[in-house]
């Protein structure tokens, strides 16, 4: 018997004004999985994450975390329920120190009764941050800022991690580092919904990758499809 999904989205519709940005989207995230979400710009990927996070209110559809509806909850409640997001563009606090940025990640955790020192495992994952704890976050390199954004989300001890284009603007070597970190995160039992532009890498890495175009789910690909460029192109261009 299949375990109930950790995160279940059913028939989601989100509108910007009267224009639907996401339409009839259904997807599941089970424990320990990484599900990818790829598609062209404006396909509705970020909107989906924002709907989960409570930044936009869905027009229709349901969003459930471990069976409990989180639809319509304000962002802070969603965060405290156990979903952490690594936002598009990182959105770290440049004027605060690295340590302060990490401490902010704790806000959601404390509300859910976390224990022990939450910084340690995260710093073990991103050792470069350990040396920069007192530095202004704005002084870090792009790659380090991305690591900080992911670390900050992990510090909250989430059950579900949402990532919005974590490899955006990073050099290939740094992209590798991001995916390596994601592999370790998956191995530690955290489930993740990964929105990405890099279609091939995502399809190869994720347990399952959905292709979104024009707000609708076009097809679902598995790791085996990573080498099949034709299928990828077909998915992107289908309308």
């Amino acid at each position, binding site marked *: 018997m299949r375990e109930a999904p950790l995160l279940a989205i059913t028939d989601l519709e989100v509108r910007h004004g009267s224009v639907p940005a996401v339409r009839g989207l259904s997807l599941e995230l089970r424990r320990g999985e990484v599900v990818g979400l790829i598609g062209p710009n404006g396909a509705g990927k970020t909107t989906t994450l924002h709907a989960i996070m409570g930044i936009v209110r869905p027009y229709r559809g349901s969003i459930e975390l471990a069976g409990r509806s989180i639809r319509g909850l304000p962002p802070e409640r969603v965060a405290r329920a156990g979903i952490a997001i690594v936002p598009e563009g990182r959105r770290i*606090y440049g004027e*605060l120190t690295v340590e302060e940025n990490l401490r902010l990640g704790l806000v959601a955790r404390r509300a859910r009764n976390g224990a022990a020192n939450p910084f340690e495992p995260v710093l073990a994952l991103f050792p470069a941050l350990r040396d920069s704890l007192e530095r202004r976050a704005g002084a870090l390199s792009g790659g380090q800022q991305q690591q900080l954004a992911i670390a900050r989300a992990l510090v909250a001890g989430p059950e579900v991690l949402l990532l919005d284009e974590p490899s955006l603007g990073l050099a290939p070597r740094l992209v590798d580092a991001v995916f390596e970190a994601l592999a370790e995160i998956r191995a530690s039992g955290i489930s993740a919904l990964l929105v990405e532009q890099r279609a091939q890498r995502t399809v190869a890495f994720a347990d399952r990758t959905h292709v979104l175009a024009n707000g609708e789910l076009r097809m679902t690909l598995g790791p085996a499809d990573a080498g099949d460029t034709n299928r990828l192109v077909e998915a992107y261009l289908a309308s």
Partner: protein
Amino acid sequence: MNVLQTSIDALALGAVYALMAVGIGLVFGVLRLVNFAYGQLIMAGAYTLAFTGSWGDPASIAVCVAVVVTLSVAMELLAFRRLRGASPATMLAATFAISFLLQSIALLRYSFANKPIGDSVGTLSGLNRSLRLGSAQIQWITIVAIVVALVVLAALGLFLNRTSIGLQMRAAAADFRTARMLGVGANTVILLAFVISGLLAAITAVIFVVQTPLVTPDFALRDTIIVLVGIVVGGIDRLVTATLGGFFIGVATGVLGDTLPSGSRVYLPSAVFALVILVLLLRPRGLFAIFGRAPAERV
């Protein structure tokens, strides 16, 4: 004109204006709202002191704090909370309306009873006495004002930099949406800003009331306007620059008020405001906004 006297008096005015700037700046940071009605909070505090004068200073001041903080929180709960996401013009107009409302309620006192406008206050009147410092006559309240402002600002600094909730407030001011996504409670942080803002207004009221023992419905209105100008000239985007702006315009007002010979003093406001325009044209983000990029826009 006595240099020492002018300097200390101007410093005190700058100190109090800095307190006001923080009170206004804190709320602006989390809400992007310029609370023009801040002066009415001070007015309410002053009136409370006037009405409770016979209760003794400690009790009187305690009640003043309670009343002002309650009023500040009420502004948020009854008005501003419903205006989240409204245009800046609407929010500003709402603060005008609140300011009119509170002023006109205060005016009722005099129109009902057909009294001349003004209530006298005796709080801490002992501080009106002065002491000699060299060639200067400094009122005790001047020194108290400087000390109190320093202590309060230091305490606030510690609060914002060393506590978790202070960190959350700083984050909310810099990028509210991301802060919420990290679990920072929007309404909690905003409410806290209004509480602290009210506290600062109450302290300001006590100081003003000692310096000007007559309360009128437009008490602190002129000061609020000057502080607002100072905040924007200093740089409203960050609390530090806003506070510096308030401080410097206070000092400038104090110095210029004392140093200019009375003949040419009539056009002083024009000179000052012409300077304000010049500064804004050259540095629209504020005089002290030297470092850092603009904070992320609040969505």
